[in-house]
């Protein structure tokens, strides 16, 4: 498979800024979290998204270098504020 598709989730203020809570992104196979963030921030995209945004893949915190797979659920996590 040359291309993979991941599901993107936008929480809190990111959902507000992106004007959506869910989306999807197509990426080259073996793309990393950092590649996805770069693509999202690209021309005409979510330029407000921090370069080092916190990301969870399949409901666990992930590193920038984490390699994505087709069908992954990738959440963009603004500063948490529980408690």
């Amino acid at each position: 498979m040359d291309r993979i598709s991941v599901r993107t989730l936008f929480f809190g203020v990111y959902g507000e800024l992106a004007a959506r809570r869910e989306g999807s992104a197509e990426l080259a196979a073996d793309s990393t979290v950092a590649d996805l963030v770069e693509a999202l921030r690209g021309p005409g995209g979510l330029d407000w998204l921090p370069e080092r945004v916190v990301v969870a893949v399949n409901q666990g915190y992930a590193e920038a270098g984490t390699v994505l797979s087709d069908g992954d659920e990738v959440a963009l996590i603004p500063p948490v504020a529980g408690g």
Partner: protein
Amino acid sequence: MSKRANDRVRTWITRESLDDFGRFENIVREIGSVEDGALLFFQGRVRRTNRGRAVSRLRYEAYGEMAERELAAIGHEALERFDVGSVAAAHRVGDLGLGEVSVAIAVTSAHRDAGYAASRWIIETIKVRLPVWKHEHYEDGESHWVGAPPLEAGTSSGGSRFE
């Protein structure tokens, strides 16, 4: 300790009220033991004043499945890090009014030192790790995602575009 770790940790994310102490009393009775000489129960509540602004209500949004996982992980990690007998922790989501409980944590331990330390560690860890976000509404009609970077002029008032 005779009970297995899974019987000594209870965590959940809920839309239902956490205001009632009694709910926790029953859980503590289930998961605690007579070797526990101390119980520490913490509640975080919606405060009227936050950073100098008058809050009218707020809404917590959670990444549901991940929040459940993280809260359970925090509970089990507390059991490993501290000499405690049991941990119960719950976080509320949805709309909350003033004075309502947003988070509740009960820790039982043989000795109070470990109980205070674990209780404090759990709430601090929830605040940095649990994928939960707070949308505060103020008496002046504005609203704001807590922890979010300040928005540019023109987008900071008038409340959220989502609800």
